[in-house]
């Protein structure tokens, strides 16, 4: 399916030509905030809803007055309602069903809506920033649940989170300032210069190229002397993706982070302030970027040239074929 979209009439918010959506595949629309992603998704909700059924997860889902259980079952037949309760259990909100829905936290509402939406047999599933309200510690688990549940369904996801692209996408559409910059199969787009550029604009991506092989249900990518363990089934030339926020720093020699499979020692080569965070670039054989708070920098007395320990959990790393 191909779409040409101009919103409003003069195209000042959105001027999309030839957007390709493939049924039974997941298309991830990737771009910075303000690129027009939500406008585009809302257009698709109406357009795809005209010829079939659409399940839509908004950035800030709304709960109707009543219990969480009532909201979970809205629009579901008894069989899919049972499925929704199973999913709610897996998402850790199965125990909240008796509570009043509007009083739940943003993250809890979001999980309920994910459970309800995945249980529906809609023709299209449209998701707006599905990971935004989820705590970082739980992202890996919820992303892998989405990955399995959305497999083979017709899905459109908009996000500015590079981990979502890596975990869910069959196809990627990069948009910026209301237009398509690039679109295609995930393997083709992620390796492209425009993806690297978009990821850099978003300021939280580590993209490391190397050779990957499966190991113990995970995937190990080697780039020079650096080994990175992550999620994925890549075998051969591949690219590892992880956010700069997922990277933690400590003073070298202050012990190992046993919960992280990926721990390295490196030297700080650059520091840049971005919003309330500082991006610290560390050379561990390849360059890795960590986003940390200015306070943490002072505590660790890190400066350019300091030797630091670098860690990132394997669950936060996604490895795809390049």
């Amino acid at each position, binding site marked *: 399916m191909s779409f040409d979209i101009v919103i409003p009439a003069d195209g000042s918010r959105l001027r999309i030509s030839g957007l390709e959506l493939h049924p039974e595949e997941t298309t991830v629309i990737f771009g910075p905030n303000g690129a027009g992603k939500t406008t585009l998704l809302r257009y698709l*909700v109406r357009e795809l809803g005209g010829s079939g*059924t*659409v*399940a839509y997860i*908004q950035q800030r889902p709304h709960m*109707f007055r009543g219990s969480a259980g009532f909201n979970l079952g809205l629009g579901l037949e008894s069989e899919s309602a049972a499925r929704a309760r199973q999913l709610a259990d897996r998402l850790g909100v199965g125990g909240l069903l008796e509570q009043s829905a509007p009083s739940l936290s943003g993250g809890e509402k979001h999980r309920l809506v994910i459970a309800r939406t995945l249980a529906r047999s809609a023709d299209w599933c449209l998701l707006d920033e599905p990971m935004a309200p989820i705590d970082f510690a739980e992202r890996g688990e919820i992303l892998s649940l989405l990955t399995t549940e959305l497999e083979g369904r017709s899905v459109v996801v908009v996000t500015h989170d590079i981990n979502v692209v890596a975990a869910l996408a069959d196809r990627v559409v990069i948009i910026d300032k209301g237009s398509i910059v690039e679109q295609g199969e995930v393997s083709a787009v992620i390796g492209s210069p425009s993806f690297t550029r978009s990821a850099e604009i978003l300021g939280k991506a580590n993209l490391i190229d190397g050779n990957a092989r499966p190991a113990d249900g995970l995937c190990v990518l080697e780039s020079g002397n650096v080994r990175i363990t992550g999620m994925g089934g890549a075998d051969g030339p591949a690219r590892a993706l992880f956010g700069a926020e997922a990277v933690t720093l400590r003073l070298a020699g202050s012990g190992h982070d046993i919960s992280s499979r990926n721990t390295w020692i490196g030297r700080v080569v650059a520091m840049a302030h971005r919003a309330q965070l500082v991006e610290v670039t560390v050379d561990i054989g390849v360059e890795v970027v960590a986003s940390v708070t200015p306070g943490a920098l002072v505590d660790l007395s890190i400066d350019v040239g300091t030797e630091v320990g670098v860690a990132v959990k394997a669950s936060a790393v996604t490895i795809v074929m390049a």
Partner: protein
Amino acid sequence: MEFLGEVIGDALDAFSEFGPELVDVIVLTLAVSGISTVLGVLVGIPLGTILEMERFPGSALVRTVVNVGMGIPPVLVGLFVLLLFWNAGPFGSLGLVFTPAAMVIAQVSLAIPVAAGVTRGAVGGLPTEVIDEIDALGLPATMRYRLAIGEARSGVGAAVVAAFGRVISEVGAVLIVGGNILGETRVLTTLIVQESRQARFGIAIAAGMVLLAISLAVNLSLGRLNRPRGVGV
């Protein structure tokens, strides 16, 4: 000032002097206005919701009719209902002229546009993400309307108050179709008109006090229903 003091005194006397008669008038007022409000909101609230959430052939026309109806002078509605039910009129054989039933018909006609218009505004004022959520659930139409009405409940409560306010305060229509017959179709507003025309201010003021008390009571009780209960509910 002396005159006003006298009038107030007369009003208090009127409660004891005309007590039983006044009670009849109050009961009829509450019955006619209450039934009219209930019927009016039963039609008006769903109508307003549908007008806001759906587009269908003729919906623009219905919206215009509702908007005009919200402000139409009650005497015009009374005149129109009177003509419809007049002996020689299309529904003359029903013999409803100068009965409480005709008063209810006129007042329902006044209540529906107000209930529909205020409801439409309340549903239209819901945040876009609420409407998007309702539309994204793939629900049958009646369930969609129920959710929207539930989310806009404080505005819909205002629609009930506004409809009741429109009918209880109204005098023109009930006067025309009811005829202000003592013991049969006389209500508080027409009583006030009747008595003040004859300079019998005491009973007019007494009726006015009752009218005010009814309006206050209705507003307070509906206001209580709308008050949020607990966090985020």
